């Protein structure tokens, strides 16, 4: 077992005029978990496809599980599992038949493939449906079956491209649990996600990709720190304009306050979290303003993302290259999704 599960250096990939990847470096130590965050179209899927030998990079190189993806793709394939963005399962086979098929294609014996199919079906909550054709499954069940298929041969490096997209909360928790156990047992995991929470929950290291480049890397904690200050979150009582609240408190902050008029909430980055609370109280009294709630908290990764990219993490969904999405909308969205947990 090599020390590094994944080493990628200067990966570049163009599709016609579009640069999907522009010199990406990555490292994943064996047994580690790397979260790749980025908006739609950032290059996450292209990167996974290169690392999983589906696409050849135009430049740079990548070594996965000890083998160069361009020179020894078959050796890489024998050691990886991939679950892409779609539930890639055959709707006309049963859940169990799907798993056995993939297991056999990995070279497992008939008996072993069946054993693993039963085991994984049980772990991912698919045991009861194992003998039903997949076309009768819900979207979440298909997604879990797809992940099970990627695990069937106990790969040493696992790629999951947005694995919990479309899962309900229980399904997501069940999958997180399984992934946690897998990585504890030594499987190296690279997962892409748009859910900050997922990266925080699973990953020891995170890279943020935007427009084909790594724009930040570190532990979730370090990235939070990069997002700078703590956040003061204020709830505005009915009948009072939240913009007045923002204006009155802006001088206390170390950045622009974000106002969410719908949720009647103001979020203000503050440099000295606890130290400013008395000043906040003083200014509110002086301006004759009231608050119906007040919280001081660390920035979420969502806010870190916003600070680093100037965009909320899901802000460019499906619109292709759109560098100038409306900043106000971005701020509102960030405020709305950054509620304290």
């Amino acid at each position, binding site marked *: 077992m090599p020390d590094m599960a994944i080493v990628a250096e200067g990966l570049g990939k163009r599709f016609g005029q579009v640069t999907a990847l522009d010199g990406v470096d990555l490292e994943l130590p064996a047994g580690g978990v790397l979260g790749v965050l980025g908006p739609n179209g950032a290059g996450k899927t292209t990167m996974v*496809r290169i690392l999983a030998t*589906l696409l050849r990079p135009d430049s740079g190189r990548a070594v996965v599980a000890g083998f160069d993806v361009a020179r020894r793709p078959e050796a890489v394939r024998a050691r990886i599992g991939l679950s892409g963005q779609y539930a*890639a399962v055959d709707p006309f086979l049963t859940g169990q038949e799907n798993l056995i098929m993939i297991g*056999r*294609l990995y070279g497992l014996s008939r008996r072993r493939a069946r054993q693993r199919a039963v085991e994984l079906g049980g772990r991912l909550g698919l045991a009861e449906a194992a003998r039903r054709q997949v076309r009768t499954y819900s979207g979440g069940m298909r997604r879990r079956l797809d992940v099970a*298929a990627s695990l069937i041969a106990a790969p040493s490096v696992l790629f999951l491209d947005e694995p919990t997209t479309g899962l309900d909360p229980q399904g997501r928790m069940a999958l997180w649990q399984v992934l946690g156990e897998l990585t504890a*047992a030594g499987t190296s995991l690279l997962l892409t996600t748009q859910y900050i929470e997922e990266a925080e929950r699973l990953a020891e290291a995170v890279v943020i990709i935007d427009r084909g480049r790594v724009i930040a890397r570190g532990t979730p904690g370090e990235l939070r720190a990069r997002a700078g200050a703590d956040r003061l979150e204020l709830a505005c009582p009915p009948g009072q304009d939240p913009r007045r609240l923002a204006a009155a408190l802006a001088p206390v902050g170390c950045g622009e306050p974000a106002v969410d008029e719908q949720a009647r909430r103001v979020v203000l980055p503050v440099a000295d979290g606890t130290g400013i609370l008395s000043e906040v109280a003083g200014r509110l009294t002086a301006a004759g303003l009231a608050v119906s709630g007040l919280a001081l908290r660390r920035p979420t990764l969502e806010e870190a993302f916003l600070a680093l990219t100037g965009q909320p993490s899901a802000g460019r969904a499906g619109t292709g290259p759109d560098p100038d999405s409306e900043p106000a909308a971005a701020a509102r969205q960030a405020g709305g999704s950054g509620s304290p947990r």
Partner: protein
Amino acid sequence: MTAVTAAVRPGGRGLARVSVAVITGRNLRRLVRVPTLLAFATVQPVLFVLLFTYAFGGAVHVPGVTRYIDYLLPGIFVLAIGFGASQTGVAIAEDLATGMIDRFRSLPIPAAAVLAGRVAADALRNLFVTGLMIGVGAAIGFRFHAGPAAGLAAVGLAVATGLAFSWLNLLLGLAIRDAESAGLAGLFPVVILFFTSSALVPVATMPGWLQAFAKANPVTVITGALRALSLGGPTARPVTEAAAWLACLLVVTIPAAVASYRRATSC
């Protein structure tokens, strides 16, 4: 995970064989479970035999042939197999769209295995379809006039024709990517070539400008070879010509389809 050891070791030739068999099994399961596919394999060939026999049988008189069904059935083999093969293009385009190809390509199996498994399943289906048409044909008067060996050779040639159709449709599906368009693209040449061939009527009854095309038409050539094997008469030349056509098609379509598969990813 309970003490899982990496059970996977790339198995070389052995895995290649197993993977083709596994993919063949997948496609055969789909064949009996997907209503459309089952209809393409059962109802349609029977309808073709009955419809063309009774619709054209009264009007067409082929010199030297007593029963029209004896003349017709070889052409209907080609039609039914050609129509059925369009489902192969549809299936591979669907696999591409749903990410199945991405998954297969991430597995330690040869690139050609997924395609070869599909073609093998098609060949088994075509064996069944040809047998079914012979059975239905026999019930309404069809007979092999050149003996059982030639009859078996005819079945073999029909199945071989299916191989070429299957590879062609795999290539179309991978190139066109949209399932519906791939299906139509697979049917279109079959319809055109079938009706401008000797499958239904002798080439001699066609206008002169069409005769030249009809004679070179691969469906005419293959139907001619199938007739030689079922009606009797000299077989060496027509069978060689048909084999040459099929070999040319396969030499072009197999490498092109495999190359296209190697580059294929969803969206």
